[in-house]
C-alpha cells in the first residue's frame, strides 16, 4: 500500500476556503467531517490538515461566509456545525468561476495545441 501522504498536494492560496464552502453546499458539517469529505472526494490526494483547516474556518466565520453552532451529532456527540450563509454561497459561485478560468488558462499555457482546435 502506498503512502498516501507522499502523493498529497499543497493547497494554493485561497483554495482550501473554496473547498470548505463547496463541502458545506449540501448541508451543515463539523470540522472533522469537512476534512474527511475533502480527503474522500479527492481520493486521498488532498488533505485538509487541522492546522490549516481550523484557522481557515475561523477566517470564513469572521468574514460571515459561514456560521457556526454547537449541536448534537447523529451519534449524540456535541460538535460545532458549520453552515453556508447567503454571502458564502455567492462567494462560492464567484470563486468557482474564477477557478475554472484559472484552470483553463493554465491548461492553455501547458497544452497550446489542444486549445487552438
Amino acid at each position, binding site marked *: 500500500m502506498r503512502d498516501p501522504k507522499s502523493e498529497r498536494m499543497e493547497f494554493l492560496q485561497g483554495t482550501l476556503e473554496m473547498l470548505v464552502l463547496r463541502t458545506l453546499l449540501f448541508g451543515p458539517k463539523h*470540522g472533522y467531517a469537512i476534512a474527511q469529505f475533502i480527503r474522500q472526494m479527492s481520493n486521498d490526494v488532498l488533505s485538509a490538515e487541522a492546522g490549516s483547516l*481550523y*484557522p481557515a474556518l475561523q*477566517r470564513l466565520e469572521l468574514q460571515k461566509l459561514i456560521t457556526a453552532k454547537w449541536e448534537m451529532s447523529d451519534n449524540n456527540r*456535541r460538535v*460545532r456545525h458549520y453552515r453556508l450563509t447567503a454571502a458564502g454561497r455567492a462567494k462560492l459561485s464567484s470563486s468557482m468561476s474564477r477557478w475554472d478560468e484559472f484552470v483553463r488558462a493554465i491548461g492553455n499555457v501547458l497544452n497550446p495545441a489542444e486549445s487552438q482546435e
Partner: protein
Amino acid sequence: MLLPKKISLLLPWKRRARERSLDEELRSHVELAATDALEAGATPDEAEFAGRRELGSQLRIREDARNVWGFAALDHFFQDVHFEIRQLKRNPGFTTVVILTLALGAGANALMFTVIDSVLLRPLPYPESHQLVYVDSIQADGSHGSTSLPNFLDMRAQSRSFSAMAAYEEKSVSLRLPSGEPVHSTGVVASANLLDVLRVHPMLGRSFSAEQDQAVKVCSVVLSAEFWREHLSADPRVLGQNLAVDGKACSISGVMPDSFTFPSRDDEFWIPLQPAPDAMNRGASFLHVIARLKSGVTLAVAQTELKVIARRLEKAYPDEDNRMGFGSQLYQDRITENARPALFALLGAVVILLLIACANIANLQLARALGRKREMAIRAALGAGRMRVTGQLFTENIVLALIGTAVGFGLAAGSLGLLKRLAAGAIPRVQEIELRPEIWFAMVMVAGVSALLFGLASVWQSARQDIETALRESAGAVAGGRNQQKIRDLLVVAQLSLAIVLLAGSGLLLRTLYQLLSTDQGFTSEHVLTMQTAVSGTEPADRDLAATVYTPELDEIEHIPGVKAAGFITFLPLSNGSASATFIINGRSNTSRGTQPRALLNAASERFFSALRIPLLEGRFFERTDALGKPCVAIVNDVLARRYFAGQDPIGKQIAFDDPDFKSHPITIIGVVQGTRQTELAKPPDAQLYLDFRQVPPATLWSQFLLKQIMTYVVRSNGNPIALAKEVQHAIHRVDPSQTVFHVAAMTEIVSASVQSRRLGAILLSVFAGLALVVAAAGLYGILSYLVTQRKRDIAVRIALGAQQEEVVRMIVSRALLLYIAGVAAGLVGVIWCGHLLSNMLTGIRPWDPVALGITTSTLLLVSLLAAWFPARRAASIDPYQALRTD
C-alpha cells in the same frame, strides 16, 4: 460589516469564550478521528494516537486561529506591558529617576496648560462673550485711555455695528445699609444698559431700567450675591429698601447671580450713572466703554466705523477732540493682554524643561540598552522579529511615559492651589483656573510625544544591532560604539544648551525686577504708613471737608509721637489709579491746533511731599495760608515743567482749567517737585499737577472727583510704620467717628504689590530654570560617570604608567568643560531668541544684558564643574591593580 465582530473580540470575556469554543472543537476533532480509527480496527491506544496525529500541534492551531482574529498585536502589547512592569520593578533606581524626571517636565506642562486654558482660551463667563468689545479713547499723543461722557453718548448714538454699548467706572464708596450700618465697598457706576450688554440678569428682582440713564430722579442699585448674603443675610425682602451710596438713597432693585463678576471680582454693587450736568465736560475722561457686536459684524468693521465717528467728533469739537481716536479690542483680549506674553513665555519654558527631561531619559535609556544588549540579542536569536523587539522597546517607553505623566499630573494638581494663591492679583481670572478634561487629553499627548522623544534613540540603537557581535561581547566590555558615544554627548549638549536658555530667561526677568525695585521711584517708601479713608457720604454737599475734617485730622496725626510727617493725597503712587485733565496756560494762545496740555491731577496736603520725601526742585510747597478763597496755587513736577515750560521758569506762571468751576480762578504755579512713578514702576514719571486740597471748590465735580471720594493718608514714622496704624486710626476717628478706614499698608508693600505679576513670572521661570539646571546637571553627571566606568581599564593603565591624580581629574573635568562650552555655544541662539521673546517684559534691561548672561553662564559652569567633580574623584581613585585584574 466585518468590524463589529472583530471589535467584539477585543473584549476579554468574548475572547475567552471564543478560545474555549475552539479548544472544545479541537478536542472533538481528536475524538472523532479516534472513533474512526477504532472502527477501522485499531487498538484504543493506536486510535488515540491516530487522533492526535490527525490534529497535529494544538498549540500551533490555536496560535494561528488567534492570529486570524487579529489579536497578535494586542497580545504582544499586553505581554510587553506585563514584562515591562516586571522589568521596571526589578530596576527601581532607574525607574524612579526616569519617572521623577519626566514627572517634573510633564507636571510643569500640565500646570501651564491649565493656566493658559483657563485664562486665555476659555470664553469669559458671559453669554456670547466673543461679541463683547472694549472701546477706549486714543489721545493725541497716541496713548489709550478712558472716554468722556459726551464722547461716549455721541459714539453710542452714531454707531451701527454694536447692538448695545455701555459705559462704566469702578468706584470705591461708603454704603449705609438699610439697618443704618456703614460699610465700605467698591462697585460700578454704569450706564443703565450695562447688564443688557453683558446679557446677564439678576437672579432676584430686576436690573436698573433704561430711562434712568437720563433722568436723575431715583437711584436704584443691584447687589452682588455675596454682598447680599454677607450684609443683608440673603433676605429677599430687602428689594425696594433703601441703601445709601455715598449719602444718596438708592433703592435695592436686584441681586446678581453668584457667578457674576464685572469688571473685577471685588465689585459688590452696580448703580446707574447719574451724571451731574457739569460731568458733560468733553475733556473729562473717566469712563470705560464695553459694547456688544451685532451678530455677523466683525471687529474690523466696527473699528472702521469707530474711526469715522472719531473724525466726525474731531470736526465738531476741534478743541477737546483734537486728534482723538477710538480703539477697540475683544474684551477678553483686553483683560488678558497683560498676562498673555508672560504666560506664553512660561509655556515655552515648560516645553523646554520637558525637552531636557526627555533628553536625560533618552541618555539613561541608552545606557540601559547597553546592559540589555545580550537580552535583546538572545530574543532576536530565538526568532523575535525586528518589529517585535522594536515594539517591546516602544511599549516600555510608553509605559514609562504614562506613569511619569500621571505622576506629573498629580504634582500639577497638587501645586495648583499654591499657584492660584501666588497668582492672585497677578493673573486675570485666577479664580476660574481649574483642571479640565481637556488637560487630561493634552497630557496623554505629552506622554506620547515624550515617549517618542526619549525612546527614539534606544530603538534606533537596537535596530542597528548585530546579533552575533552582541552575543560574543563579554559583559564587561559593553562599550557601545563611537556612534553611541556621539549620541550621548549630543544629548547632554542639548540639555545644557536648553538649560542655559531657561537660565538666561529667568536671569533677565530677575534682573528686570531688581532694576525696577531699585529704580528711582521719585519718593522714598521706607517707614511710610498709608491708609485709605472715606467720609460717610451723609455730609451736606456744600460742607467744606478740607477745613472741617481733613485739616483737623492731619493735625491730630502729626501730634502722635513717632510721626515725622503726615499728609494726604487723592491718588497715591502705584496704587489706586490716576486721573488726568487738560489745562490752559494763561497768556499762551490756544489757537494752535497742537495738543492741549494734559497732566495727571491730584489734590495734596502741604506735608504730603515731606511724608513721601518727594524732593522740591524749585519754589515752595503748599502752606496753610493757601486756603480756599486765597489765590489758587499748584505744584507741578519736573516732567510737566520740561514739557510745557521748556526754557522758561514755570514758577509764577498761571494756568487754568477750561471748566466753569475753575475758569474764573487762575492757578499760579508755586513749586516744582521731582516726578514720581504714578501708575507703575516700569513707566517713567508723566506730567503731574498737584492742587492744594483746601482750594478745591466744594460742592463741585472737582471736589467730588478729587476730595470727597477716597483719600489716602501718608504718614512717615521714625520706626516701623505699621506700629502706628492703630493710633492714626484713633486720631482720625476722634475727629470724624463715621469715617471708614481701610487698606492699611506700608508704602513698601504697595510698591512690592505693584510688581506682583512680574514677580510671579520671574519666580515661576526661575523655578522651571532651577529644575532644568538640576536635570541637566544630572545628565552631565550621568554621562561622566558612565565615561569613567567605561574607560576604567584605560584610566587604570594610565595610572599604572605613572599618571598623577590631577591628570586623571583634569581629563574628566576637561571633558565636562568641552560639553559645557558646546552647550553654551549651542544655547546662544536660543538665548538671543529668548531675549527677544521676553523683550516686552524687560524694562531698563537689554535682552543682551551682560550681567544676567554672565551670572547665568557662570552658574551653569559652577554646576557643571560640580557634576564633574564626583566622577573625576572616582576616576582618580581607581586602583590600577584591581581594575586590571578583573575582566
